[in-house]
């Protein structure tokens, strides 16, 4: 394989789409976190742009590595993630949860890294074992690989990130060779068992689920967010109320508006046009990602593409769905739009991996 990289072969659409998504996010985060007396350099937006800068830098670093080389990272990264997930449980709680490790001003969220490392390890595992030739014990392996971080993340608690692991896992098992029917049965058991899980949930998570069923149950507390978010989205109309023009956003009706509920800001200020543009851009990533999955002869690359694409696609779906009141509120950031350093950098790492698979794909 040639040692010289030809960046002309870079998938430009797959590179441009995340940056465009990020730009929509930058305007929305600026609007959502606007304070009249704050200097621009102190705003969250400047931080967010900094994270993105680091993210893009990482993309180019990843591109220099051969895809097959990435396997070597899989297990070490996985163990580091699990270690950090354990470590985070010993940090002081914030907002009733232990999700962040304070790295001198920057709050690192290990669960974000864990998602990516789970995908890498599964892709690595699946690349040298075929489903048909597996012993029963071997079949258990992927469940353990996902189960450990899944339970640790649930313990934090961070329901959103834990939930995201499920579609990723199912999609990758499917790609590996599990039958769709077996997976659907597995999913059904999971759903049926979830009332059991209900007892293990924290109070606020339970409230959120109940409120999802009926937002008017608690219109000031948990339901408040959903009602206000729906009003924000609905009042955006076709073209939105203009940048910085959203009353829902600026009247402090929307909580967590620069993080998990950023989509409401996009919708209120940018209207249907901005929402569909955002959906289209995520669609571009998803389409290109799954295409990579289907076309890459290397099984590792193919599995990796499958996991990453599912991760980004489902995160977008769950986040947008919850702000619209279509899904229960679980804390999932909208990739590259929500404010948050760990999320931005992890997503860009994932994009970097996709671009890498494309760039290093053997040509026929």
């Amino acid at each position, binding site marked *: 394989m040639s040692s010289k990289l030809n960046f002309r072969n870079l998938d430009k659409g797959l590179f441009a789409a995340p940056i465009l998504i990020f730009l929509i996010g930058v305007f929305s985060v600026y609007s959502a976190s*606007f*304070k*009249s*007396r704050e200097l621009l350099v102190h705003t969250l937006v400047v931080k967010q742009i900094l994270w993105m800068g680091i993210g893009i830098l990482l993309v180019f670093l990843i591109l220099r590595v051969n895809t097959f080389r990435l396997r070597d990272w899989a297990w070490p990264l996985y163990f580091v993630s699990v270690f950090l997930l354990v470590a985070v449980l010993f940090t002081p709680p*914030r*907002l009733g949860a232990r999700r962040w490790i304070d790295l001198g001003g920057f709050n690192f969220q290990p669960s974000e890294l864990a998602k990516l490392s789970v995908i890498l390890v599964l892709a690595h595992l699946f690349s040298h074992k075929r489903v048909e030739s597996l012993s029963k014990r071997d079949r258990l392996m992927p469940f353990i690989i996902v189960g450990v971080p899944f339970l640790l993340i649930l313990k934090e608690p961070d329901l959103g990130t834990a939930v995201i692991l499920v579609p990723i896992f199912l*999609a990758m098992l*499917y*790609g590996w060779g599990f039958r769709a029917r077996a997976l659907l049965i597995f999913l059904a058991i999971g759903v049926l068992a979830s009332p059991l899980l209900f007892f293990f949930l924290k109070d606020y998570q339970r409230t959120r689920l109940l409120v999802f069923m009926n937002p*008017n149950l*608690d*219109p*000031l*507390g948990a*339901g*408040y967010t959903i*009602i*206000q978010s*729906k*009003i*924000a*989205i*609905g*009042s*955006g*109309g*076709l073209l939105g109320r203009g940048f910085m023009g959203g*009353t*829902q956003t*600026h*009247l*402090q*009706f929307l909580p967590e508006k620069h993080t998990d509920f950023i989509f409401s800001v996009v*919708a209120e200020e940018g*209207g*249907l046009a901005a*929402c*569909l543009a955002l*959906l289209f851009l*995520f*669609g571009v990533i*998803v*389409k290109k990602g*799954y*295409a990579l*999955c*289907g*076309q890459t002869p290397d099984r590792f690359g*193919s599995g990796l593409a*499958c996991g990453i*694409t*599912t991760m980004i*696609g*489902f995160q*977008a*779906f769950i986040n*947008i*769905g919850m702000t*619209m009141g*279509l899904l229960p509120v679980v804390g999932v950031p909208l990739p590259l739009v929500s404010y948050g350093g760990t999320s931005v950098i992890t997503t860009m790492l994932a994009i970097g991996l996709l671009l890498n698979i494309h760039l290093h794909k053997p040509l026929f």
Partner: protein
Amino acid sequence: MSVSDKAQRLLFVTTALFAFLGVNLVWMQVIKGDAYRALSEKNRLRVIYLEGARGKILDRRGRVLATSRLGFNCSAIPWEAQGAIQQSCRVLAPILGEDAWTLEKRFYERPPGAFHTVLMAEDIGSQKAIAIEERLDRLPGFLVETHSKRTYPLGESAAHLVGFVGPIRDDEEDLMEIGGYKPADWVGRDGVEKFYESYLRGRSGGIQMEVNSRGRFVRTLGFERPTGGKDIRLTVDAELESTVQEYLRAQKGAVIVMNLEDGGLLSLNSSPSFDPNLFATREGRKKVGDYLTDERAPMVNRAIRGAYPPGSIFKIVTALAALEQKKITAATVFKCGGVLTIGGNAFHCWNLTGHGDERLAEGFAHSCNVYFYSAGVLAGVDAIAEKAAQFGFSKLTGIDLPGEKEGFVPSREWKKKVYHAPWYEGETANFAIGQGYLQVTPIQALGMIAGVAAHGWIFKPHVVDRIENVKVADGSSRTLTIDPSDLRAVIDGLDAVIQSGTGTGRLARVEGIRIAGKTGTAQSGQDRTHAWFVGFAPEENPKVAVVVFLENGGRGGVSAASLAALLFQWLKKASYL
């Protein structure tokens, strides 16, 4: 099925999900868009926050030190009030007794770009509030909000102890995000109010209602009951607290009285003080700026945040160090000729004519510098520093009040590291009489004398006894290993300070109680010296320990000892002794 077929299927599923979102977006934003916009624009949702009552702060007998009362504010919602602001202000002016033009100016003076409500008149009283409520239909965009206002019946007297509350600031996002505070909430800013914030605070609830374009109530959408905070009972005696503040008047300083049963404080005062009631209103908060620029620093709690040279009260530590090192005994005699030469430098006693031959007890009684120069040099800097650390100097006492300072105890290593110079014996002499680099807080000085009084038990000082009937004061303590005979020798010295005819602390004498104590007069670097007194009573069965510190208060044996006498008299009258 090939991998590429499977990828196709996954793409299909995801696309379907995205399409589902898209369709719903069209439904919400285009088809139902007008209805939602109406909700956000014409018929507004309004949330009236109901504050959960903040817990009360009570003294040991249940007397109120901090409580909340209901107050009314008149506010305007800018985007609703704007249109008719001129007329509205004319309606409002006679009710509030203010000029219409002033009100209008206040409305326009709000920070630009802010969407918050504008506070038009604060704490207006129920009469005016009702009058405004009655005329609300002529005041579009105006509303009367209720707020609980914190009041402090003791005013200045307990300000440093009880602290105060202030409104949350815009830049305190952490509190809002993590603590679940809302923009209009109040948080403890100092003292007990701050330290026990998480117990005292109430959780606000509220009513969410729909109002029409004229701001009139249409219907209630939801209600969340507010919950109150917990009441906190202190170990402090409110009467003593105000009495001490009177004793101190405007004199800079601090006085602390400790109950030796469990280390609970009977009073903690710092002077000058401030009026915590001012923080309740915006007008009042403007005056707070004066406090902050006042060079007498009335906002600084000197009892726990001021570090000063202790002067002669530190001789207690020096004596114990020398006794423990077996360098002196109670019977060791040093001759004071008014001056001692160490390393070629003359070190003077405060009595320049000299005290003559003295044993340890006389050394204490006269607070003779020469005696303690000699004892200190024999013990050495390391032993004294070690003993000081055992008594808790240079460490936080762990009192349940915010912002405690550590003070400073020098050492040979420190001097070498910072000054790249060896430690001189002359410095040990200064150290031995509590001068030089040494800095202690009044609460640490109290810890020292309490430790002596309780025969080596060092209590963790605390001011809170119970939170809502749950005892929180653990009375935790640690022990010093002091030889009982050493302790006896020192207590005999402290006894002589008060009882002896030539004792420096004789002004602290009170009829009918045997007091042991020590005065201190510390060079401050300014014109006037700092005056100290530490002591306990009754000597044989100690019940209370006190520290009196008067910044630039002159001689410890005069100002501080006299104030201590008043304290002991009061404590006797109130049956604490």
